[in-house]
C-alpha cells in the first residue's frame, strides 16, 4: 500500500509557464516532506522541503504548498525552464526520530520551448 502517491506519471508544460506537481499521502504521522529531482543516469538531488507545521516554503522559482487537512502537497515551478525537465519525486518522513524516507512513484516533467 503506497503511503505517498504521485498520481500523474507525466506532465508537459511550455517554457515560461507554471508547472504544478502534486503529491498525496495517507499517513497522518508524516511530519516532514521533501521533493527530489532526478535526471537520467544520475542520482536524485534534493530540491526543497517543508515541515508539517508550515503550509508554504519558497526557494527561488520553487514553492511547495502543504494542505494537511487534505493530506496533499504540491510543488510549483515558476517560470518553468527546459532544464527543469526531469523526474520529480515526493518523499515523506515519519515522526518519531527515524529518517527513513518514503518516496512516491515520481512524475516526469517535460518543459518544451
Amino acid at each position, binding site marked *: 500500500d503506497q503511503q505517498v502517491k504521485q498520481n500523474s506519471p507525466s506532465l508537459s508544460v511550455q517554457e515560461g509557464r507554471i508547472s504544478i506537481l502534486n503529491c498525496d499521502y495517507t499517513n497522518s504521522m508524516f511530519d516532514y516532506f521533501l521533493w527530489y529531482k532526478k535526471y537520467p543516469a544520475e542520482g536524485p538531488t534534493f530540491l526543497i522541503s517543508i515541515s508539517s507545521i508550515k503550509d508554504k516554503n519558497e526557494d527561488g522559482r520553487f514553492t511547495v504548498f502543504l494542505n494537511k487537512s487534505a493530506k496533499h502537497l504540491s510543488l510549483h515551478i515558476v517560470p518553468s525552464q527546459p532544464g527543469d525537465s526531469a523526474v520529480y519525486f515526493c518523499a515523506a518522513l515519519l515522526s518519531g526520530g527515524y529518517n*527513513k*524516507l518514503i518516496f512516491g512513484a515520481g512524475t516526469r516533467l517535460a518543459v518544451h520551448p
Partner: protein
Amino acid sequence: DVKVTQSSRYLVKRTGEKVFLECVQDMDHENMFWYRQDPGLGLRLIYFSYDVKMKEKGDIPEGYSVSREKKERFSLILESASTNQTSMYLCASSLNRVGGYTFGSGTRLTVV
C-alpha cells in the same frame, strides 16, 4: 564537494551469481540507505543502516543482504541474482533527520 560514490555505473550479471554493490560516502554520515528504482514504482527501500555493523530491513529486503563494517562503506549483496532484480540501485547517506539525503549516481544492474 561531498560525495556518495557507487563503484559501478553499469553491471551485467548472470542468474544465480552473487553480486556485490559497493557504496562509499565521504561525509561522515551515520545513516546509509539502499533503494531500487523501477518505472511506476518510484524508489523502494531495501535496507538501511544507522551505525556501523547495524542494519535494518526496508520494504523489500527479500533476496538481498547488506554489510557495514566501516562507517563510510555500505555494501548491498544479491545472494543469488534473479532477473527480477534487474533495476537501478541507488545508495544514499544522511546526517540527520531533516538534512535530506545525498544520493550516489546509481548502478544499473541487468541480470540475464
